[in-house]
């Protein structure tokens, strides 16, 4: 009989083992880090205007921002706009400046068209034939702002801030503040959903963990089947159940609990959002809880009772602390998923169904303002990261039990 030397496998084997993870590393890099990085870079880097109007912007650097720029600036702008028009870039250029100051799209496009036709003697008159707004310093200020290659303006807007004419950072007027209140509401909804999931999921997980194996298998199937069902099907099912003339209301009316003209509004409001989101996210709470509870021997509770603890004491002082890793993992999972949620609230939430992620989707798909979408995504990323750090400090990330 030979003793094994007390060392690990040789370095070559270890290297080979590490090599096995290479496809995963490459996959994560290609499918996650790379797109994430390019997307986030859009939130601070926007070269389109800077590339299209280099000379104009260079000349504008010496401009005071108050009076109208001189003829050389107009001439450079006219020349570069004409080039942009030929490359069919004028519209995109206008779109970018329009984001800085609404109404600039047509000013830029008309200016470019006028420059191509050159109807007047000086460049200044030419552009002003295209659109009189070229005679206003505000137009040039907007171009100068849109021309920043590296910019924080997307983040400013994502935080409901703006720069005034003097360049100092101020809050937006109240009717334009949107993203911060929305973020707060999203956090609030996510918190409420997490709490509801915990209240509903904890007893379910306990029931499954302590059931005989055969019955436990069936119970876990009941948790998993909705989890495997299409999200849209589940959401639509809630519409059928909760609408004014839906199943629940009709049942209540038939039982005489509510009057026919007093049917309860349970959908297209915050109630609908909470009910549907809690249902969709419940498995993410139950599964980690179940996996932790299964490992708690049942004689712990009996031991607590035999030492004189009543049922409440034995639950709060023995059982509950032992389930904390599962509780924390489930809550973190549900909360983070809820923050990024948008389809379900949009369908069942009415005017309260607008959450932070809806705005990201909106700017990605409809307004095509990817810089702003990236900044909003960046903020969400930071919020989730901060939550994780807080969690790590409080509970310790290594104790996470994800099921």
């Amino acid at each position, binding site marked *: 009989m030979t003793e094994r030397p007390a060392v690990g496998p040789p370095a070559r084997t270890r290297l080979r083992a590490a090599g096995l993870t290479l496809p995963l590393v490459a996959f994560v890099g290609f499918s996650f880090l790379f797109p994430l990085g390019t997307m986030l870079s859009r939130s601070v880097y926007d070269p389109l205007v800077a590339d299209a109007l280099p000379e104009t912007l260079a000349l504008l650097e010496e401009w005071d921002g108050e009076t109208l720029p001189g003829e050389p600036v107009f001439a450079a702008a006219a020349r570069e706009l004409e080039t942009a028009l030929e490359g069919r870039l004028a519209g995109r250029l206008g779109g970018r400046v329009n984001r800085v100051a609404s109404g600039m799209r047509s000013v830029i496009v008309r200016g470019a068209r006028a420059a191509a036709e050159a109807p007047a003697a000086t460049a200044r008159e030419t552009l002003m034939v295209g659109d009189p707004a070229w005679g206003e310093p505000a137009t040039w200020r907007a171009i100068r702002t849109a021309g920043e290659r590296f910019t924080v303006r997307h983040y400013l807007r994502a935080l409901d801030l703006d720069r005034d004419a003097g360049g100092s950072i101020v809050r937006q007027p109240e009717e334009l503040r949107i993203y911060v209140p929305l973020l707060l509401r999203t956090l609030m909804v996510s918190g409420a959903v997490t709490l509801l999931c915990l209240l509903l999921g904890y007893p379910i997980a306990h029931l499954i963990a302590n059931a005989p194996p055969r019955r436990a298998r069936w119970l876990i199937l009941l948790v998993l089947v909705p989890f495997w069902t299409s999200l849209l099907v589940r959401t639509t099912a809630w519409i059928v159940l909760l609408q004014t003339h839906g199943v629940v209301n009709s049942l209540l009316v038939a039982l005489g609990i509510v009057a026919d003209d007093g049917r309860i509004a349970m959908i297209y409001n915050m109630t609908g959002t909470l009910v549907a989101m809690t249902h969709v996210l419940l498995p993410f709470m139950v599964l980690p809880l179940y996996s932790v509870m299964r490992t708690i021997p049942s004689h712990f509770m009996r031991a607590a009772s035999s030492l004189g603890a009543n049922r409440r004491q034995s639950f709060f002082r023995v059982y509950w602390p032992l389930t904390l890793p599962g509780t924390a993992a489930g809550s973190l999972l549900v909360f983070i*998923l809820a923050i990024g949620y948008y389809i379900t609230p949009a369908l069942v939430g009415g005017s309260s169904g607008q959450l932070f992620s809806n705005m990201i989707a909106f700017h990605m798909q409809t307004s095509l303002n990817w810089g702003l979408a990236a900044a909003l995504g960046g903020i969400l990323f930071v919020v989730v990261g901060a939550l994780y750090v807080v969690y790590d400090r409080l509970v310790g990330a290594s104790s996470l039990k994800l099921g």
Partner: protein
Amino acid sequence: MREPGRTRRAPRALAALGLAAGIACAGDPPDGSLTAVSWGGSFARAVNKAFYEPFEAATGVVIGREDYNGGLAQIRTQVDIGNVHWDVLSLEIFDTIRGCDEGLLERIPKDILAPSLDGAPPEDDFSPGTLTECGVGHTFYSTIYAYHPDRFPGEKPATIADFFDLERFPGRRGMRRSPLVNLEFALLADGVPPGEVYAALDTQEGLRRAFRKLDTIRDQVVWWEAGAQPPQMLADAEVVMSTAYNGRIFNAQALENQPFVIVWDGQVLDWGQMAIVAGSPNLDTALEYIRFMTSPESLARLTGYIAYAPVRRSALPLVSTHVETGADMRPHLPTSPENLRNTLRSNGAWWTEHLDEMNERFSAWLARS
């Protein structure tokens, strides 16, 4: 583990990946094919009957049918990647202007248009403003509001102001989750004459006035996003009245025997545009298709399937009856003289400029609780 909020996007992301990988092996589609994109639902069914099938029969071209929900995002992706697989599509006017300026759409020479029936040049036959650099108008559609008569046994709503009158007509209302048309409705209901609505929206005071009017009903509004939702919500009694596209309400009346009533007062008239995606591999077929579908005969044929009016004057005398029910279509079109009495024509140029800003304001307004 899937993140539920992303599931809808996953197929698109996969498709994009597939596209990127497939560029090398995907050659041009065979001759005689065309991918046409429309808006889904009853509109797509009407377009299929009135345009696609006759065009295929006449030319032998095979049309690939796709649907989308508007916007320029998908077109931009195709053009930017350099793999254009859509050829012709129907767009809203402000997206047509924007897409044209940004080089996402082909310019359409107007000499390809089919001649009018009264001998006028096509430029005079099309309603003013419906021909743009990259777009050819096809049908007028209108946003109206409709109600279910059973919910109002006594007095019935009759004007756009009644839509905002919670005292006389209580109950929840459906509205599109968008500033489009809603801002106009609010000002019309507040007594601004149609001719002054966009001038008012150009001022901060006018904008505030519009939002203040919306404030008066916001607690009672159920927001819809797809054109198919309002008839459903009316039928389910989820709302007592709802803004809607007139064609969708007509279809519910004609095909599902719903007793909905359309209030034409204050209707906001819009028109669809046909356009060609820049770099379309089937440019000639696409132009031929647009010539075919915007001919007076084709546009009149569409009215046999849905209550959207031709933008060509010389097509109007050809409008006859609904194919399935035999109903006379003329009184159901948004452009019929009775329905036109208090009408606002949507200003696409204004929306091209202000859509982004209005969307932000509208979202801010919606988010305020």
